[in-house]
């Protein structure tokens, strides 16, 4: 009886892990089998380097450069905001704050991660965007800049909690040795603790990057949706995720537009795949 139980347990867990792998490969296969046919309608150079995205016009233009640039601009903006805030709060929580302050601040930052993205989107649309028009005198509030701010706030808890984990696993004797040599707290944190926690911190930033570039609802609601290469950060952009999500509804299955959207998904997949590999590589190196 016991032996049977043991074997069944083994079987169930094995099937479960197999299942996720099958699903993953299924998704990748669909992505490529639906996305590659776009190359029959447009050559790969035009697809990747033309900024003109007019998929429903006749004749259509399938250039996704402006969508790729849109994604990269908002993601870079989000990281510029989230890295200092996330890393700063991680250092404060793990190195400077007393146990009382730590107990209060940590859950609050983690609470940010639990807010659904559509709520962030509403906040950006109804509050942030009119506020930016008044504060900066910019002509429009739905643009790459406002999307970056909101995405940045969303990424803060990821960078903060993961970096905090990495920093707190740095052995205490490293810090004590540093203090013993006469280093101040600031010097210890910047020159000893952070380099020691380097891989965890970089990993958290990579994860934040993945979250920001894959976020869909917020950019649909706040980025403005204009498929153009922005001349400034105050212009609207149309990130890849926003294009896929808001256009999939109108496409006829099997049409060039449909394949083009899957083509965008392939590019997005490749970008996140590469970031994941880099992250994995950093962690592997650390373990050795």
């Amino acid at each position: 009886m016991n032996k049977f139980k043991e074997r069944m347990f083994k079987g169930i867990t094995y099937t479960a892990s197999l299942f996720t792998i099958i699903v993953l490969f299924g998704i990748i296969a669909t992505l490529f089998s639906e996305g590659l046919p776009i190359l029959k309608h447009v050559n790969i150079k035009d697809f990747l380097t033309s900024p003109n995205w007019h998929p429903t016009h006749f004749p259509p233009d399938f250039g996704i450069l402006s969508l790729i640039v849109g994604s990269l601009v908002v993601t870079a903006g989000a990281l510029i905001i989230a890295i200092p805030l996330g890393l700063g709060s991680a250092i404060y929580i793990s190195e400077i704050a007393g146990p009382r302050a730590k107990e209060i601040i940590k859950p609050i930052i983690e609470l940010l991660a639990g807010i659904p993205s559509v709520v962030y989107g509403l906040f950006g649309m109804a509050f942030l965007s009119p506020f930016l028009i008044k504060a900066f005198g910019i002509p429009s509030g739905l643009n790459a800049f406002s999307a970056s701010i909101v995405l940045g706030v969303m990424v803060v808890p990821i960078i903060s909690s993961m970096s905090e984990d990495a920093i707190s696993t740095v052995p205490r004797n490293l810090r004590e040795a540093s203090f013993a040599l006469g280093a101040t707290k600031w010097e210890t944190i910047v020159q000893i603790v952070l380099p020691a926690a380097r891989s965890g911190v970089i990993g958290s930033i990579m994860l934040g990057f993945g979250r920001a570039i894959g976020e869909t609802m917020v950019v649909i609601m706040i980025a403005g949706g204009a498929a153009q290469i922005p001349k400034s950060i105050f212009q609207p952009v149309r990130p890849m995720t926003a294009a896929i999500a808001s256009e999939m509804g109108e496409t006829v299955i099997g049409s060039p537009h449909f394949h083009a959207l899957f083509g965008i998904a392939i590019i997005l997949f490749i970008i996140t795949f590469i970031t994941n590999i880099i992250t994995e590589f950093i962690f592997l190196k650390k373990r050795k």
Partner: protein
Amino acid sequence: MKSSKILVLLIIGFVMLYFIAACVQRTNRINTAGSTTVLPIVQAAAEIYMQKNPKINISVRGGGTGIGIKSMINETIDIGNASRKINKRESDLIEKDLIETAIAKDAISIVVHKDNPIVKLTLEQLKKIYSGDIINWRSVGGNDKKIIVISRDISSGSFEVFNEVVLDSTMVKNNAMKLSSNNAVATAVSYTPGAIGYIGLGYVRNELKVLKIDGVLPTRETAMNNEYKLTRFLYMYTTDTPKKLAQDFIDFILSEKGQKIVEEQGYVRIK
């Protein structure tokens, strides 16, 4: 051991209950999806209809005209709501004919920020603004201010009708913002001083200023007699053998009571 047997029995019981419930539900359910322009009418009508017939459950989803028609083609819904006629590409995909019922009329209103001094535009000026030939309000008699052009996303029926009537196969300029719903456009225009956008008549609010197009203001009367150019019918699509319930719901919207709902939601009645 005994408790696990009871658990298994309980689970089987629940699964059976679920299937029975699903079967019962299926017969008393109407699924609709599609245009966000038609959505307020269907939602309001569904609420009143379900109050009168408490056993019937109507599910109302948005998603855009394209989704409504696509779901009709895949037969995942009973009624597809559309703010435009089905196009050639879509009708080629089905062998059966879909039945089209016009349920209301809508006027696409051109709106600007309430502080904008402009009161009227011609169709030609509107076309030039959206294609990028006119970029400053000064060129159409307004203040020296950049025009922020707001369009709808391409899964919306409003976008297609606007393209057909106003743009006449010219492209919308690349840097025009494309927002995903009538409400998003209305909100953005209400707080963006240089903005221009287009929304369904039902979404016009006090913070927005509606422009005269070719000298005509969009109202119920001008939409009904076709004086206002940017008008369109709103449709419900069913298969050629609609469920009795679905047909009954459409008849309800076409009745005096239903048309009153249409009017209450800010659209134009057709009967």
